[in-house]
């Protein structure tokens, strides 16, 4: 059982790290602000989400698990809001090339 849980952790955390890497590659490669914003959200949503998922089996208690999920949900809310605010700022002032 222990081994199985550890395996879940390793797979999910590695996948999360991969998505964070994908986000970074997007930031480095994409030509304009809006597409960079798009790349950034991948790291937020899936990267952090998968890492949280991977850490859940390592939690000692139910409350620790709930706290991890709460962190992910809060990060989602923040990510959604920030993306909107930044995208609006970009659109309002024209796309810098």
């Amino acid at each position, binding site marked *: 059982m222990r081994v199985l849980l550890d395996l879940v952790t390793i797979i999910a955390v590695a996948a999360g790290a991969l998505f964070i890497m994908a986000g970074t590659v997007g930031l480095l490669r994409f030509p304009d602000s809006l597409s960079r914003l798009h790349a950034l959200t991948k790291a937020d949503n899936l990267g952090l989400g998968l890492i949280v998922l991977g850490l859940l089996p390592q939690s000692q208690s139910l409350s620790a698990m709930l706290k991890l999920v709460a962190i992910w949900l*809060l990060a989602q*809310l923040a990510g*959604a*809001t920030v993306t*909107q*605010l930044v995208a*609006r*700022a970009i659109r*309002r002032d024209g796309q810098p090339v």
Partner: protein
Amino acid sequence: MIAAHVFDAALAVLVLGVAIWTVTAGPAFAAVIGFVAYGLLLALVWVRIAAVDVALTEAAVGSGVTGALLISAAARLRPTEQRAAAEQPGPALRFAAAALAVLVAAGLAALVLFPAEPAPTLAPAAAAHLQALDVGNPVTAVLLAYRSLDTLLEKVVLLLALMGVWSLAPDRFWGGAPKLWPGGQRGGELTLLARLLPPIGIVIGVYILWVGAVAPGGAFQSGAILAAMWLLVMIAGLQKAPEIGQWRLRLILVAGPAVFLAVGLAGFALPNGFLSYPEEYAKPLIIAVEVVLTLSIAAILGLLVAGPPESERQR
């Protein structure tokens, strides 16, 4: 253990890199964003050197009120930026400053590399008080019992800073309300966030305060979180900033230091001196002081960001 070393090395390089960016970046806004990022990284450093209480404070203050204060200031000062930046100091002054900075840094580095042996510590002295206080978090115990005088004076400093900010208002605005950044973007997602987040933030603030008795957390961190939530509501325009002439507001501002001082003075009469707690009531008294302190800290930090009053007093 190797992974931890790699992490530390990467973190140190990143902290220094972002600090260099903050000091050398061209536009002021870029430097401010660098500084916000720098604060976030410092929180990671504090976790690595076993000071999670400080990490929490850095996270709460650095990514909350400090970020808001600096970003709005950079936006407001933008029109003046180029002219001020033109006054570059001459090469002689730059060289002298660089030499001085290197000298100071080298001296401090020498202190780090060749420290006093054995390392001086007050941990045993602080630990001796922990049992009597029934407070599990040593940092909270130091802040509110062992070195409580520092904490009391620090509250007074916060109040003085707020009075300094208020005193910058023109005479006709005295007693009026600060304005939080008119002219910016409003509505939509900002309103949604300002409705959704504060209830959650208040719960988390109370949690951080409560857990502070036994684990990292406490009045400062909680106060900074609550201040950020209050500011969010005011920035979104859901609630106006309060008029600084209101006596109720002023009562909240001074309540923290006043209750702390009252408990401290009571120490003369009951146990054995200023700022000492009677042993059987130590924990409830500390928690009561912390609750009031949290409210005062939240109000003071929020008003410090809001700035001096910019409208005439109603009535």
